[in-house]
């Protein structure tokens, strides 16, 4: 996948895939679109720093805060806040190719929270699981790049 496609965030805007059961077993390779992530090599700066490492660090620092905000909003039935935080998490996840988190975010954006609190709960669990898998892949990629 090209850099243009990353920026286009095609994952972000495509209709959601067929519903995925909350606790489905996935392999870590599904969690992150490595081809998409590596396309950022085109943008590497001249100062020797690794942009991809930097983006991974930013994501791994930022996403948990967003997820915490999402959980807090869900606990307090603040659905507007929840959708907003989900929207932000979706954007950064799609940008980095963390596609399963992004897909879960799309589902959370579309679900009618008021009428489906159980559905929200399942999707939040799914989001945590997908993020855990993605973090593993991203950290491994980070380590590989720093060696």
């Amino acid at each position, binding site marked *: 996948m090209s850099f243009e496609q990353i920026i286009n965030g095609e994952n972000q805007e495509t209709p959601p895939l067929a519903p995925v059961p909350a606790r489905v077993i996935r392999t870590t390779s599904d969690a992150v679109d490595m081809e998409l992530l590596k396309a950022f090599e085109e943008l590497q*700066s001249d100062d020797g720093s690794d942009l991809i490492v930097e983006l991974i660090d930013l994501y791994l620092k930022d996403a948990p805060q967003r997820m915490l905000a999402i959980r807090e909003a869900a606990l307090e039935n603040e659905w507007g806040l929840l959708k907003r935080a989900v929207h932000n998490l979706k*954007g950064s996840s799609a*940008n980095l190719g963390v596609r399963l988190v992004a897909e879960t975010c799309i589902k959370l954006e579309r679900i009618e929270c008021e009428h489906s609190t159980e559905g929200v709960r399942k999707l939040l669990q799914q989001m945590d699981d997908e993020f855990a898998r993605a973090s593993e892949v991203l950290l491994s990629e980070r380590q590989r790049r720093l060696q």
Partner: protein
Amino acid sequence: MRVVIAEDDAVSRRILETLLRKWGHEVTTTQDGEAAWNVLREPGAPSLAILDILMPGIDGLELCRRVRQSPNNIPPYIILLTANHGVPEIVKGIEAGANDYLIKPYDSDELRARVQVGVRMVELQTSLAERVKELEVALTHVKKLEGILPICSYCKKIRNDLDSWQHVESYVAAHSQVEFSHGICPACFENTVKPQLESFQISQALALEPGN
């Protein structure tokens, strides 16, 4: 060109910053509307602003309104980033004062092209503002005559501000950009010069007659 980015998502902000720097711009990044507003109020503020609509605190729309209401000499060119595809969102953005918008996720070539439009607009505005300034300076050097001038009905001298009577030529020359070049109009030639010449010729002829 100096560009300010206001984007609360760290990953998107870094990608945007990297792209703009790669294209040769000087970039200031902010993560909320308040910080961007502070940057845009500074003297010598960036001429181009790329603002996310959805931000904590002051959002992109409110930021646009504030920028447009502030008395900047050359207001910045504003590109709004919106994730919503709806026309109302875009209309709101433009009504709030944005020059352009981009729907996220955006294409980097499209972003580059739109930024270039902004650069051209800012350069044009800057050039026009400089021209206006030059004209204003030039206007301060232009002298003009206006109002009522007291003039003598007989000798046509003009009474100046010091209450003394000045020849019309020197008065006009002192109060305007005018310079005089002297000549004789046909009527004065017929009525004044010609009789004087004839009288002169007669007196010369008489002087040359024998016995004088």
